[in-house]
């Protein structure tokens, strides 16, 4: 790969990450910046090595399988280190909260899980959309590999949230907009997985699932902005770009570390799962047979 292509690929990743971050931290306030970044991302996507001349070569399951295998340990170790450091900050360094006492420490799993539940859905919808538009098998496999992890994080966000709500608000569950839309998000994940499972032809399942994921993506902004639209029991977000976080620095640090740890974990797990899916679906391909023979030897 030439230097130019590497720079394009890096630029693409940075543009898309920045757009996602701004969207989640500042919402619609910076919609212009966000649209510009997404546009930039799209332009770079067309230019970068992975999405132009070499796209089909790089995006074939055959060449991705060993690449993913090499990437997994990195992300797994990164997740392990981050989670240990994050837990240390969360429990040993972060101080007691002035109004919630120690119960606020649930924030260190609840908020990262809630973030991941939404980010994973967006990533899933993104890969599903790419799979649908470019008709690439691997993108659809990525979407399929992300769904179960996303469903688990959604469930965790709901359960830890209700365990936090009981001592603080005085109830395990209220039907407010944010809780309800997070529950709907769980149903959307389950629907996506059920639809894929019940269509026998895998290519057809990929495309049907992709369409459903895109239709459901309408729900994600509703979840995020429901707090602002409806005046609900759930507090606003503590972190906004441009303003200082409404949290003590060490608390913020613990939360961000845990979120990064969850992120790395998600990537590692999704890569393992995509390798499984590749093996299961390409069982009859020559390269899979060669590979299995090689691994026995």
């Amino acid at each position, binding site marked *: 790969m030439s230097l130019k292509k590497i720079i394009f690929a890096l630029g693409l990743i940075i543009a898309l990450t920045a757009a996602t971050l701004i969207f989640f931290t500042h919402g619609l306030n910076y919609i212009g910046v966000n649209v510009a970044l997404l546009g930039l991302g799209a332009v770079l996507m067309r230019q970068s090595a992975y999405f132009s001349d070499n796209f089909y070569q790089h995006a074939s399951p055959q060449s991705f399988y060993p690449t993913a295998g090499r990437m997994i340990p990195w992300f797994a170790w990164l997740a392990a280190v981050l989670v240990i450091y994050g837990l240390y900050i969360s429990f040993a360094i972060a101080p007691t909260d002035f109004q919630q006492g120690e*119960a606020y420490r649930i924030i260190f799993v609840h908020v990262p899980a809630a973030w991941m539940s939404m980010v994973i859905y967006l990533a899933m919808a993104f890969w599903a959309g790419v799979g649908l538009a470019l008709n690439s098998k691997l993108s659809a496999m990525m979407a399929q590999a992300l769904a179960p992890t996303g469903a688990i994080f959604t469930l965790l966000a709901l359960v830890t949230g209700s365990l936090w709500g009981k001592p603080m608000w005085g109830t395990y569950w209220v039907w407010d907009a944010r809780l309800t839309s997070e529950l709907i998000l769980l149903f959307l994940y389950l629907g996506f997985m059920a639809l894929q499972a019940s269509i026998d032809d895998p290519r057809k399942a990929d495309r049907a699932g992709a369409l459903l994921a895109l239709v459901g993506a309408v729900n994600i902004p509703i979840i995020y902005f429901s707090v602002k639209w409806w005046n609900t029991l759930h507090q606003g977000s503590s972190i906004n770009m441009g303003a200082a976080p409404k949290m003590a620095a060490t608390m913020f640090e613990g939360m961000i570390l845990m979120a990064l740890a969850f992120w790395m974990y998600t990537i590692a797990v999704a890569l393992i799962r995509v390798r499984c899916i590749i093996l*299961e679906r390409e069982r009859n391909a020559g390269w899979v047979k060669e590979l299995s023979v090689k691994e026995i030897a």
Partner: protein
Amino acid sequence: MQWESWSAFFNMGGYAFYVWFSFGLTALCVVWEVIALRKRSSEALRLTRLLSQND
């Protein structure tokens, strides 16, 4: 350090159930997912080998 003793740490200012349940459940889900995936990949590899040997 925030804690005077281990028992204070485990007690979590009286919120032990809520805090440890949350963290425990998260750990449980992660461990379960990793184990399930290990099973799935070894099963996938085993089946692939079986198929290639039959050729």
